[in-house]
């Protein structure tokens, strides 16, 4: 099989540096697998957004004091489900303590929407007890729903 014929992976476990090219490359690999598994454009948009939010939180907040540390990204694409785990090496946080960014008094604050967007677009969003690892689950909608 030539390189051009290579099938996209259906799962991966990689370490990503806080580098735009590293992040883009990891994102591209996952989205290639998502497209190959015949997810819709809307699904791809949702998965990409949630992945970006998880990585942004990991690097921006989890690794605020660990700029050189990589983040671990694990994903698995199945015909009906995509499961993504992003784990940083920071102290973690309590996602339930994040205030609702849609409250009128918080609407003009320029931060605090990442967790909300992940929850809006994913079927499931789970954090470990420490709050440094998030698992995102996306389920392919029935064809009629797309």
């Amino acid at each position, binding site marked *: 099989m030539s390189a051009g014929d290579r099938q996209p992976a259906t799962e991966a476990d990689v370490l990503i540096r806080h580098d*735009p090219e590293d*992040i*883009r490359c990891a994102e591209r690999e996952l989205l290639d697998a998502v497209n190959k598994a015949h997810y819709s*454009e*809307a699904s791809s*948009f949702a998965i*990409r*957004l949630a992945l*970006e*939010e998880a990585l*942004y939180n990991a690097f*921006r907040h989890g690794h605020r004091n660990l700029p050189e540390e990589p983040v671990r990204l694990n994903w698995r694409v199945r015909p009906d489900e995509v499961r993504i785990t992003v784990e940083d090496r920071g102290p973690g946080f309590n996602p339930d303590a994040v205030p609702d*960014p*849609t409250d009128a008094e918080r*609407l*003009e*604050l*320029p*931060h605090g*929407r*990442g967790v*909300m*967007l992940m929850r*809006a677009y994913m079927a499931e969003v789970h954090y470990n007890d420490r709050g440094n690892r998030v698992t995102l689950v996306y389920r392919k909608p029935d064809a009629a729903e797309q």
Partner: protein
Amino acid sequence: MAQSDARLRVKKEAGVTHVEFVDRNILDEANIQQIGEEISGLIDAEPAPKLVISFSNVDHLSSAALGALITIHNKMKARQGQLRLANIDPQIYEVFVITKLNRLFEIHETTDRAVQSFR
């Protein structure tokens, strides 16, 4: 080098500053920071600015990009300026609806309608 290139296309017409993004994906942190700085410079350039930001080239964004837009909104408000967003793809508009930012920003279907809305 791409990093040092302008991330916006800007034109001024009849007292209105029109801004378009060069990138289809305004997720990248470095790009977002640069976009914020470039628009900030445009706001500072005149009193009570009128600004239309067109999303016609944009097919993706993130909460960090929304944060940059809110910072722009707040700066415009402080300068008694008027900000309008236009040409937002339905998928991206949904992000504004989920976050209720469609209530904060004045969003129009086209740049023409956005321009007509200025007081």
